């Protein structure tokens, strides 16, 4: 039976290959959607195997240390990118931006020691998987919106052609719609997180660093959604706002849990 490590290494190679093909095809002015999506599907299949083996060995899902969180997010974000691209054809043109961004996560994951973990007691509640799934859906949609907005910025700021991507107005409009869907999952994620905190620590909100950052991300999304309808013409600015939201969300998901000693870290 192949080991977790071999499966993960192969999956990482295929993720990076998908990103590489998307970029090279864009530079060459050609569409290689089918190749990119096939590579993504193969990478996801291998990665699923690696996660399943680790899950069986440790008897818990990938959500305790940095490696596990990176691994589960690399998996879920690529899965959302794949499914969204299959469902909405116009999103495929943004994979040239989305996949390299996710490629950075892949490299980070591969550089992070895959230490074994034990689940903190406060993680043993039904609200945790609900909270996590909603969080991954939210972040996945933000990453899709990010890809679209990077297309806008790359064209306007750097003059890139990206002929197979949606035009700037359409890309920015699609990003807005994706963000509208994202806010639903984000709000539900906060509600499920509060229910988890109530179960785990007896309080639903305590302004710990992760809660504060998650709330800031929510405020940023709300502000963007209130700003954008009256400023539809400001394509580049709107795209920059979505990129800013991604930066805050990225810090919330991948920074704060590992630099604070708050309960969210599962401090024991």
């Amino acid at each position: 039976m192949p080991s977790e490590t071999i499966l993960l290494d192969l999956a990482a190679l295929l993720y990076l290959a998908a990103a590489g093909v998307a970029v090279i095809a864009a530079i060459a002015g050609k569409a290689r959607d089918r190749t990119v999506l096939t590579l993504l599907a193969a990478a996801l299949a291998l990665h699923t195997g690696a996660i399943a083996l680790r899950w069986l060995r440790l008897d818990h899902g990938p959500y305790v240390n940095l490696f596990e969180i990176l691994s589960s997010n690399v998996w879920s974000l690529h899965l959302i990118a794949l499914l969204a691209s299959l469902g909405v054809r116009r999103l495929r043109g943004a994979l040239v931006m989305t996949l390299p961004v996710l490629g950075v996560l892949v490299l980070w994951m591969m550089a992070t020691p895959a230490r074994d973990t034990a689940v903190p007691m406060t993680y043993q509640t039904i609200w945790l998987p609900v909270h996590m799934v909603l969080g991954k859906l939210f972040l996945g949609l933000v990453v899709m919106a990010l890809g679209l907005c990077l297309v806008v910025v790359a064209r306007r700021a750097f003059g890139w052609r990206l002929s197979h991507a949606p035009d700037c107005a359409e890309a920015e409009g699609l990003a807005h719609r994706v963000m509208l869907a994202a806010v639903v999952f984000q709000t539900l994620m906060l509600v499920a997180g509060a229910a988890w905190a109530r179960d785990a620590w007896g309080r639903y909100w305590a302004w710990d660093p992760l809660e504060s950052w998650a709330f800031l991300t929510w405020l940023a999304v709300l502000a963007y959604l209130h700003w954008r309808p009256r400023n539809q013409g400001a394509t580049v600015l709107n795209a920059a706002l979505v990129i800013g939201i991604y930066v805050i969300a990225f810090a919330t998901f991948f920074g704060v849990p590992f630099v604070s000693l708050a309960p969210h870290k599962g401090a024991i």
Partner: protein
Amino acid sequence: MSGTGLKILRAVGSHGATLALLGLMALVVAAGLAFEIEVADWIVPPVAGLLVNLVAGLVGQATLRAQPMLFAFHAMLGVLALLVGLDRLTALNGHVEVVEGAMFDPALAVVEAGPLHPYALDQVAFVQGGFEIRYLPGMKRRETVSLLRVPDGAGQWREARVGDDDPLIVGNYRFYTSFNKGFAPVITYTGTDGRSVTGAVHMPSYPLRDFDQGNAWRPPGWGPERAPVKLWLHLPEPVYDPNTAWTFRKPSNPVLIVIEGEARQELLPGQAAALAGGGQIRFDELRAWMGYTITANLFNAWMMAVAITACLALAVHLWGKFQSQPAGSPAGTGVRHAE
């Protein structure tokens, strides 16, 4: 409503005001992160402002009213803000330490309650039984199982098992075990008049303050002008090895060190010694104490229901929008907003 009134209403309920207040709220949260200010206090003004902005928007924005699910989402947000306010006024948070074999004493609980909290901690009764805490190598705390005896309402006592995520629920109150626990020497003091009093002195949290197992104790009848007696717990054999898995337990050979000024006496369980200041102290036995976090949130279920209703309303609203304006259509790039 007059033209001026309508103008004011629209200004108060405008998107610009919403954005400004969201920005103010973000500033407060960011300041909380940067300077560790109490966000819960400082966030009240922007929340109140947003509530006013929301109500003005709901009343003054015709297009918002024309979109019932979007209206419902915003209205639910307003209700949620009010419920959070009510919760803050009626909530209770606190902590207490209870020694093995002793009744929960509400007078010993350190609590912080909202001004409208219907205090009923004095109606809570339970007796602390034993407890078990497992640790993994590297001092990683695992399950805590604390056994309590709780009145069953029919004149009998039932056993309850409580943990970090498995509270004892009595009325509005929830008692969770916390990381906080330790040892408590039970001592009997016999005064110069021959009267004896028995009690437990809680030592600092263990193993968190492993090397600080001491406390000051003033015997009954000693006035504040007399220096308290210092009690130290000496554990000759280590209770745990941080590099291996272990279970919290009371040490088998505790020594109670009694210090009065320069005088120092060591007592094993069952031994007694005379105090220079008068009277006698006997070290009866060593027990453990468990720390509990106490919470009471009266509006949790309502807040949850309203929050989920709000999310559903927003989802239905967006679903309708996406259905009527497919991606890529000229109108499909934005959601029409209230003017």
